[in-house]
């Protein structure tokens, strides 16, 4: 193998690519974890994008006024949960169509944040301030000199670790905790849940609230961890990619985690493709092409599955 080929592969598949994929994955992953919970409980929420954006903005505002990143994260989670509660009221209590309510959440998210950005800070477009305290990175000194692993894990944001822990926590919740059984029953067989004396609305409400917290954390990470600025509509479609990850992962936490990391990896890879003389328009297209292919495969697989189950 010639020298140029080696450096080509290092550019594309060096450990930095995986470090980048982890960073890029977190907002996707958190929103996807939230969305998979409601999907398990029988509510398809396409409003992840709007909830994330509310998380971005409220996390940013609270961080700005308190100059404290923990307060910012909590603030993002609280306000996003309130917005999710509103979604829940419409879908669960008022029985609105979940897709319509989801679209409304997306529109509300964009509208309210754009308006408040102007009302609170008097600016349009973007805002940043030295008062913002970014979510710190966790320096793992003992990993620093380990090859490959050191580059990937030694200097990641605390949120990366929280995100990975949440994958395990949600997996445990769904498959090893009593409330997780309720959530899945609410999705698979709501009548059975009701007849066994468990309140269906209560189960769904709690699920929607947890999903609000997760989306809020994902959003707040974007505006106060990944970046320390707020930009209008900064979720930039990540909520929809999260939905694709949920679909590809069949709403199962571990699989959703792997699809989120797949999407994030493809994105970081496409960034690096430009460095090896791939035209930018082609490189930038790749993540979307992969998303389309993945979704096509998913729906084909589901079709096959439903064919075999009817036989």
């Amino acid at each position, binding site marked *: 193998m010639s020298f140029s080929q080696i450096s080509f592969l290092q550019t594309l598949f060096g450990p930095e690519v995986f470090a980048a994929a982890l960073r890029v994955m977190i907002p996707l992953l958190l929103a996807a974890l939230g969305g998979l919970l409601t999907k398990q409980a029988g509510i398809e929420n396409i409003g992840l994008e709007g909830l994330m954006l509310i998380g971005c903005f409220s996390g940013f505002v609270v961080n700005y006024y308190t100059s404290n990143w923990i307060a910012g994260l909590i603030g993002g989670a609280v306000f996003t949960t309130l917005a999710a509660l509103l979604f829940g009221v419409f879908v669960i209590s008022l029985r609105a169509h979940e897709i319509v309510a989801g679209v409304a959440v997306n529109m509300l998210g964009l509208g309210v944040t754009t308006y408040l950005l102007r009302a609170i800070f008097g600016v349009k*477009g973007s805002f940043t301030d030295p008062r913002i305290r970014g979510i710190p990175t966790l320096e793992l000194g003992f990993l620093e000199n380990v090859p490959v692993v050191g580059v990937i894990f030694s200097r990641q944001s605390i949120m990366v670790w929280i995100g990975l822990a949440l994958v395990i926590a949600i997996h445990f919740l769904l498959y090893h905790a009593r409330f997780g059984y309720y959530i899945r029953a609410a999705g698979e067989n709501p009548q059975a849940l009701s007849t066994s004396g468990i309140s269906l609305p209560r189960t769904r409400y709690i699920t929607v609230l947890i999903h609000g917290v997760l989306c809020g954390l994902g959003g707040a990470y974007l505006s106060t961890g990944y970046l*320390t600025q707020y930009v209008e509509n900064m979720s930039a479609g990540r909520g929809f990619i999260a939905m694709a990850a949920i679909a590809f992962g069949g709403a199962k936490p571990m699989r959703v985690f792997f699809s989120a990391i797949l999407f994030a990896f493809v994105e970081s890879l496409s*960034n690096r493709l430009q460095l090896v003389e791939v035209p930018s328009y082609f490189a930038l297209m790749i993540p979307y092409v992969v998303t389309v292919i993945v979704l096509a495969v998913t729906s084909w697989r589901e079709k096959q599955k439903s064919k075999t189950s009817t036989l």
Partner: protein
Amino acid sequence: MKKFIAIIMALSLVLALTACGGGSSVTPAGNPAGDTSGPVASPTEPAVVSGNVKNVAMVCSGSLGDNGIFDMGAEALRQAEADFGIEYEVLEGKNDPSLYYDLLLKGAQGFGMVIVNPGYQFESYLEEIADEYPDTYFFYPDGICPVEKDNIYSISYREHEGSYVAGVMAGMMTTRVGFPGINDQKTLGFVGAVDTPTIQNFLKAFEQGAKSVDADIEVKSLIVGDHNDPAKGKELALTLFDQGCDIVYQAASGSGNGVTEAARERGLYTIGCDTDKSPLAPDNVMGSMLKNVTKSFYDAIGIFAKGGTMEKVQYEGLAMGWTGMYFAPDFQAKMPEDVLDAMTQAEEGIMSGAIAPIDAKS
């Protein structure tokens, strides 16, 4: 019977439509009012009797408060009001293309000079309106208007001149030994918004300037594909820093703010573009390659307010101060003397014609 009435109704509708369409000039789909009276009726009072321009309208696609081209344009109008005694109005399009036609019409009817900002958003409307108002001067920044009319003037910036100087600076800094953060690799980075001739104009001349210092310097470039995704901008800048770049030049609009953050996080350097980016990261923004919209609008208004005229395509850079490097005072104090000298020499060379930066736009 019902069917018959329906047919009559349909026929009358069709007739009414053709009757309307026949006599009037074409109305664009984006014009909700369907106003056809304006251009056809003979204007009772021509806005200007040719000669000196007395009032100026700036028609924006977006709204003021953007800290960018709209605010810079408004600043030019304010200065022109004070210095040339013109009156002005800013017509804000609020990012709603359905308003653009009417705003441009309003500007054309009431003002001697109309600046559409940015030009490319108004091309199709200019094509229709410019002929109807021959006494109004229309200004098209930034680029060369594809619609050729006697009263449309294009304002274009020589980004390559300022970018060449930025390249000289970056080239001298990256080959330097002992400056904090600068590594021993001769690698520079570039992040562009979208792959267009204008962005190439920034890149090519930057590369040329850097290579004039040391032919071994390599410039790695990445394109965001979006004007307003700072998260991706940051990711690309981090990618470049991982590749051994110590200075990244960005021409990426809103996405560029992410590049500035990446430099701050890594303690490395970036060169901003369009406006002064140093407030975001005073220790990491070496300087900014300004595209001085204010100066260019001010110059154009000044020429016409005094009754003069300018070239159909006014293509300016360093000589008129339309583009050029700017330092925040704090960072300028840190810059080595010989780098500043080399930049001044490059500027003089470009203005005298001794140095010809690559022009990717023409």
